[in-house]
């Protein structure tokens, strides 16, 4: 859906309203492991998520393109990018990933947005104490 609103007031003025036009969605997720000391590299994390997609949606799911934009090994927090049509698939497989190498784990989805910029300014992170 893409609608071009209005209105040339003057030669230089232009306004365009884009509705649901974002090609990608961005997720900020954190992997919580039973054993906090387990180390997990970015490549291992991506492979782990692909396994989850394959378990839930089969080969078609495993072929879903998503990007691991940024990963912090210490907090196991990652920024993911996925095409908007694949968001529900990716999210549901993250939810159902319950075990990493025989230890219980869970993905906490911290923030989801069609704009990567929104992930840089989340007022819920404001700490004043």
């Amino acid at each position, binding site marked *: 859906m893409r609608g071009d609103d209005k209105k040339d007031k*003057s030669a230089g003025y232009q306004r*365009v309203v884009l509705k649901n036009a974002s090609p990608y969605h961005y997720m900020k997720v954190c992997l919580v492991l039973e054993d906090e000391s387990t180390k997990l590299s970015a490549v291992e994390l991506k492979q782990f998520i692909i396994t989850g997609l394959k378990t839930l949606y089969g080969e078609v799911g495993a072929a879903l393109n998503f990007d691991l934009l940024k990963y912090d090994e210490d907090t196991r927090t990652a920024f993911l990018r996925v095409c908007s049509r694949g968001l529900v698939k990716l999210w549901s497989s993250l939810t159902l990933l319950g075990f990493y190498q025989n230890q219980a784990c869970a993905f906490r989805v911290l923030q989801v*947005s069609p704009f990567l910029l929104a992930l840089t300014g989340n007022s819920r992170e404001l700490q004043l104490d």
Partner: protein
Amino acid sequence: MSVDLDQTPRSILVWERSSFLDEKNRINSEVEQLHFNYKVSVLLPECSSTPPHLESVLTSFSRFYLVRNLPLHKLLDKEFLETAVYQGSVYGLSYRTRIDEDNCVALMPNGRLVLSLDKDSFQVLGFEGKPSTFGNRTKNRFVVTIDLTDSSMAPGGRGYLRLLTGLTSRLSLQMDFLLSHHPGGGASLQPLLSHCDWSEHTPEISTQSLTHLSCPEPQSCDPHSFLEWLGAVHTDVSSLSENSSSNFLSSLVCPEPKTTLSQALRVSICGLLLPQDVHHLVQELRCYLERSRLECWTSLTVHGFVDSPVSWGDREHGVLRGGENFYTLLMFHDHTYHIHLATGAHDTCPP
């Protein structure tokens, strides 16, 4: 029954191009109407250290106050209304309350008090309100908007007494509250602060310098790609500098056509930030562009509070998956600008 897994909640991006020299430009109203700003980030390409003028503008951002366990009826205190609400503009927002699950309150600079309440609280309060626009058929959330400057809300008036009784005897809401006042600052808020446990806070400034940054052509780049690139710069995505789409981890690359910036400066400031200060910063950035060389540009991103009951002006705001309400202003040397205003699913179209 099959469910469409491809659908995502609504999002809106408004892209506008105009010039500061155009008398009809709407930039001032767009900046001033977003009342509750959480973070401002500035990107200065080809700049290695914060220009002194800019630094002084950033350090002059108004301080704000955190009041702990504020009983809401204190906002109706006669002395507070006279020194703060009737004179100048108060910015107040409940802190650490989530609009998708808790009661949230905002006190707007035009003297309106907005309460976003769950159904139980709304019924107990017994004050006129309307169901939230985003509740669909469930009607589990209600919005009560009260104009404190209205004659019926003057201390002693009928509406005033009704609300005061509601907030003292029926629904004694207490919450942490962020407050700021323009132009009076802390002095105007004294009548309220003197009865409460409060702390003063200065907006937090952070600066990072970046080197060898791939950068798209800002004049011609499509809005979504530009915002993605800017987001990648602000989140420190490393694959942007590697710029290889065949990487296993990420295929994110800088949009074409691109150039490489030898250096750039990223400055951000966080807290309860007033639109007046943001406006001042925009003016200073324009001066900075005038002083700098041709073809220079700069961007300014302002994030609104996720859990504010309003976004631009009086427009109702909520959280579905994310409560994003932000704008990015891209300013050029020739006084033209591009502004991108973005909102999520529980929000109306930006102005």
